[in-house]
């Protein structure tokens, strides 16, 4: 078991929901817990902070069991979704609140508040009242206040969800910068997969009170452990495995031939839209020499311009296939191609170990 960082095994049951989650966060890491609403990610944070009681399980922070400590002795700071700035105190009093509890003298408090405010780029905001601050400023003050007590762990509960899109992007960069400057172990809860992918060292995907997958962003995006993770962390197309004989193009010269081998259970394939090639001239063959699936006579249902690409939804034999194209197709009927190495296979929603003859991943 790691001596550094957070190791938790949380168990709690509520009226209509059971939480049973195990995961670890290395010291100095920024981990994101992500999942749809109601998956238990906020509950997980409150269990770590001690705001909700645990039933069994264990909670180790830097080698110390903190599962039975009261909230205020855990040295875990938390930034709440609504920031929870105390409305009867100004910015300085808010940030100095934990310092006063730790009995720092006035001069030291003043100095530390100034330092924290410059860390969150709000120099000179000491005397402002929290009602006078914008959403983004409140968020920064809440962060400064959480950092004031030198916590061993920082918890952020959807800290950007109340802000508009542009500010959100800017502030998540700020949070990353502040994290890198302080090096504090951080758990960040969000429901926004883009936010998680861009900010986190490690992503923990939760669903219905359980951890579905834990790992680096790239891993989770490219090798989702289940169909749930695959569809939650970005877009893609799910098709039954049985369409393969109809669509497989297996060049004999290929060194990695694809063998059709259906399995028991609901056997499906999944691929991301950016891995689909779109060909609008039927007479030209797909420029592909490796095994791939070819969907002929797919009808373009919609074509949305996204700036750097077009997002197409095509209908092929009753299935909808999502793809990204760098140009707008000139014809209604197109041919789509996906390299077999881009295809992930799932049986009953769970990723299967690739059988020997299927291509190995990249």
């Amino acid at each position, binding site marked *: 078991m790691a001596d550094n960082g957070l190791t938790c095994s949380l168990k709690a049951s509520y009226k209509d929901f059971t939480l049973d989650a195990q995961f670890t966060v290395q010291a100095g890491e920024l981990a994101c817990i992500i999942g749809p609403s109601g998956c238990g990610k906020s509950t997980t944070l*409150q269990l770590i*902070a*001690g*705001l909700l*009681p*645990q*039933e*069994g399980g264990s909670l180790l922070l830097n080698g110390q069991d903190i599962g*039975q*400590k*009261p*909230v*205020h*002795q*855990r*040295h*875990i*700071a*938390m930034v*709440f*979704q*609504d920031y*929870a700035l*105390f*409305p*009867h105190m100004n910015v300085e009093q808010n940030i100095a*609140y*934990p310092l006063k*509890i*730790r009995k720092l003298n006035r001069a030291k408090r003043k100095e530390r508040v100034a330092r924290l405010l410059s860390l969150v780029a709000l120099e000179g905001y000491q005397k402002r009242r929290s*009602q006078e601050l914008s959403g983004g400023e409140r968020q920064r003050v*809440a962060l400064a*206040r*959480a950092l*004031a*007590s030198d916590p061993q762990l920082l*918890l952020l509960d959807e800290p950007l969800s109340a802000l508009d899109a542009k500010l959100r992007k800017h502030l998540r960069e700020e949070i990353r910068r502040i994290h890198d400057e302080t090096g504090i172990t951080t758990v960040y809860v969000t429901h926004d997969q883009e936010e998680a992918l861009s900010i986190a060292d490690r992503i923990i995907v939760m669903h219905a009170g359980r951890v579905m997958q834990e790992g680096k962003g790239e891993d989770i995006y490219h090798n989702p452990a289940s169909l749930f993770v695959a569809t939650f962390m970005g877009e893609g197309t799910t098709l039954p495995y049985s369409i393969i004989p109809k669509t497989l193009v297996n060049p004999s010269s290929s060194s990695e031939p694809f063998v059709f081998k259906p399995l028991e259970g609901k056997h499906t394939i999944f691929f991301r839209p950016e891995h689909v090639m779109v060909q609008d001239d039927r007479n030209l063959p797909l420029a592909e020499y490796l095994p791939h699936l070819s969907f002929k006579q797919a009808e373009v249902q919609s074509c949305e311009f996204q700036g750097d690409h077009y997002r197409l939804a095509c209908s092929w034999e009753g299935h909808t296939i999502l793809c990204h194209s760098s140009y707008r197709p000139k014809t209604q009927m197109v041919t789509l191609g996906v390299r077999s190495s881009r295809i992930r296979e799932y049986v009953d929603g769970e990723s299967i170990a690739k059988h020997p003859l299927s291509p190995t991943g990249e």
Partner: protein
Amino acid sequence: MRKANNLQYKRFYRIVPLPSVVVLLLLFFVPLFFTLSSAFITEEGLTFLRVLEVFTDSYTVKIMLFTLLQATLSTLFSLLVALPGAYLIATYSFRGKRLILALSAIPFVIPSILVVLGFVIFFGNNGFLNGLLMSLFNLSEPPLKILYSFKAIILAHTFYNFPIIMSLVSSYWEHLDANCEAASQTLGANKVQTFLKVTLPRLLPAIISAASLVFLFCFNSFAIILVLGGGPQYTTMEVEIYRQARMLGNSGAAAALSLFSILTTTLLLIWYNASQRRLARSETYQNSKRIIEKRPATLLGKLLALLYTLSSFLFILGPIVSVVIRSFMASSSRSAAESFSLKWYRQLLSLERATGHMGSALGALTNSTLIALLVALCTIPVALSMCIAIRRRESKQSFLELLGMLPMTVSSVIIGLGYYLISSRLRGGLPLGYVLVVLAHLVIAIPFVLRTILPEYRKIPLSYMHSSLTLGAGRIRTFLQIELPLLKGAIFTGAIFAFALSMGEFNATLTLANSSITTLPIVMYRLIGSYNFQGACALGTILIGVCTIVFIVSEFAKGGTYGR
């Protein structure tokens, strides 16, 4: 496998509600126990005979029926007066509207003895209204002779209670989604059909809820019936309980009667709570106010709005203003006309030799002030500790919240009766009498203070407390530095409410106190009884002053303390 753990601050939460529970149990259930036990226990031991006897007696049955009748009629008349006003306020914007709404808060804070006095001064044979009508139409006789009759009771109840219905219904009405009416009209219904089929059904829960509240008030009305009813033929339950206990010395019968009262009040409260819940469910309450820029379009509409505004002013403010005016008037000799004079205030402050009951006025003023101060100081910690405990178990139907509201199920006359029965067993001196008055007022004030503080406490997001805990503050420190400062306003309002409630408390005090105990309302009652109305008006003006402060404070408190 729920482990005992300290992270939920069990000890804090176990200790905090203790004082309030103990206080409520002692102050509420002990007197209630005394009352009920004397209903069932006589010298011969436990018996149901007395209860049976009282309940089958034709006189009692008559009283019960009369109590229900007067409450029903009063509620109907209040509805009749209030609903047009509610319509005007909800549909139109006109001058004086905000003032009417502000004034309609007055009945919530005004003590009933003041209503009685105002009614006598305003509607009485020598009152302002008769004087006005006589000089307007050159009459030699007062045209309105309504005092000390059934009419007087209904009229007083109506003018005391219609603003309650008006403000409750109109505020609900204003928040109804106006698009429903628009939709109905686009679907082909005319205005009348729209009102009957779309507006009225949606409004009905609010009307029922407000009417039940008023019915409850009228059912438990005491001072108005006691003074304005003017005799045994118009006796209600509450008055009869008082009469049996204090005039006929038959506390056993009084206790048996209070059983009926408690039962009915409890049923009414349950019904009222259910109607409130229905109200909360019945419509998604719109946050944005519907746009009312419309002024009455027709001349008739304008006239009606004007008439309604003026008469509400007249009837809500008239009695109060006339009390103040009368207090500054005295006649220098028996036959001379009244002119401006400070005579009653000089008598009140003992600067001049006082006659009759005015002699005890200054003492009563000091007593009332001291009692009210004590009550205000004691209710706050009790209510606060209950709030904390209630907030913690928010998700469950809180037993404590119910406990805190329980004193409302028992009318103040019965609380007074309970304390009277205690005092007759203890045989303490005058100091004990005053202590019992304070305790009775405390029981009466706690539910109101709880209702003032609890909603404000619920407005504090849990994340404030949680974030204070994660920042390293313990539970007590969090309470002192986060909750307490945020509740300052509500606590102050609650304390003022408790103070005013105690200053104006009449029913319980009259029922429990012997003749040597004097408080402001008691002396007012005695002065009215001996026809020294101006003297009563001087005391009443002081009460009005207190109520005005409460009124202003509660209007300010509506703005909320911290906008988030």
